[in-house]
């Protein structure tokens, strides 16, 4: 039985407008799970097959692309990790679009702002 986010109610208990088929966030999360799982499985398979376990700087995009095309476990695992880290942020963007004009959209924007701050701190260090 699916009820989705339409069950949310306001501070006084009133029921908000029922929203149907708002599956954008879960679609993003499922997609991210599948893509990252594929990358990790490929990386693991390459590792088991004895492909060289070279390492590089994860922020060096050219090195990652080179490793992907060889193909090496490191490049595919790095892409999988990036997908895993980015997916929650994309999910929040999907939530903002689903809930446009409602409180949830502003909350999602606030959380996105915090993730952006984390990215800023990470890059500045």
């Amino acid at each position, binding site marked *: 039985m699916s*009820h989705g986010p339409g069950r949310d109610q306001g501070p006084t208990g009133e029921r908000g407008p029922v929203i149907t088929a708002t599956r954008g966030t879960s679609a993003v999360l499922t997609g991210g799970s599948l893509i990252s799982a594929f990358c990790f499985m490929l990386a693991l398979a390459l590792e088991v097959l004895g492909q060289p376990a070279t390492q590089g700087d994860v922020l060096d995009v050219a090195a990652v692309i080179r490793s992907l095309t060889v193909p090496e476990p490191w490049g595919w695992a790095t892409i999988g990790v990036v997908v895993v880290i980015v997916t929650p942020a994309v999910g929040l963007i999907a939530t903002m679009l689903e809930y446009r004009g409602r409180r949830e959209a502003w909350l999602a924007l606030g959380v996105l702002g915090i993730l952006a701050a984390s990215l800023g701190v990470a890059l500045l260090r």
Partner: protein
Amino acid sequence: MSLVLIAFLVSIAAGGFGALVGIGGGLIIVPVLTVLLDVPIKTAIAASLIGVIATSMSASAHYLDSGIADRRLGLLLLLATAAGGISGGLLGSLIDGRVLALLFGSLLVFVAVQMIRQRAAAPAPVPHDDPEGGGFVSSYIEPSDGSEVRYRARRMEAGAVASFAAGNVSGLLGVGGGVINVPTMNLAMGVPIRVATTTSTFMLGPTAAASALLYFAAGVLDPVLAGPVALGVFIGARIGARMSSRVSQGALRIAFIGVALVFAAQMFYRAATG
């Protein structure tokens, strides 16, 4: 057999055991990688965070679709947990590994003691029309009988403070934070346990992502290790969830308490000897 393959297999076991006991895989995988496979603790924490996000992503998609996870409450508390995740991640990448081992050992003891003391009776539900409750009213459909369960999420300030602490613990030690979030939402905020666990799972992904970014940029996140660990924890959690109804929860809890205390002792030993 390579370290990566061993880590993958061990992560399946850790994820399965974590799901069977009802805790995240991180609480098991970090000491397993550190103590058994001699992985540096910061690398183990970073790998565990990737596993936390992957597990959260997969489970949240289902919980959001079913309407059980309270998205509004989750987003509200996420403001605090994600901020806590940044400070925890910053602290974790800065402080000495021996201090992290000491803190992790303490967390394991705390969780083991909580499990020993856990009351058998569920807390009384808070009436949704509690006039002093504050907060907001929401509802979900109970999957077991199809009935609508209404509740009032209250004490938002207390929830926000506890969520910030949970984010710190998650970022610092690579665990989900559900060990703080779930009891806070259930006991302090009056949220039904089913909503508390699913909402907490929804919150774990963005929280751990805020911390993982910091470990990633600091160069302590090893993708070749983190990938198989995430995949293993994810697969193990699926298997564990399917097996949970067929295994004695009491025996599992006792097993977990034993394992947690052994790992805690190992962590304290590492903290003392380096």
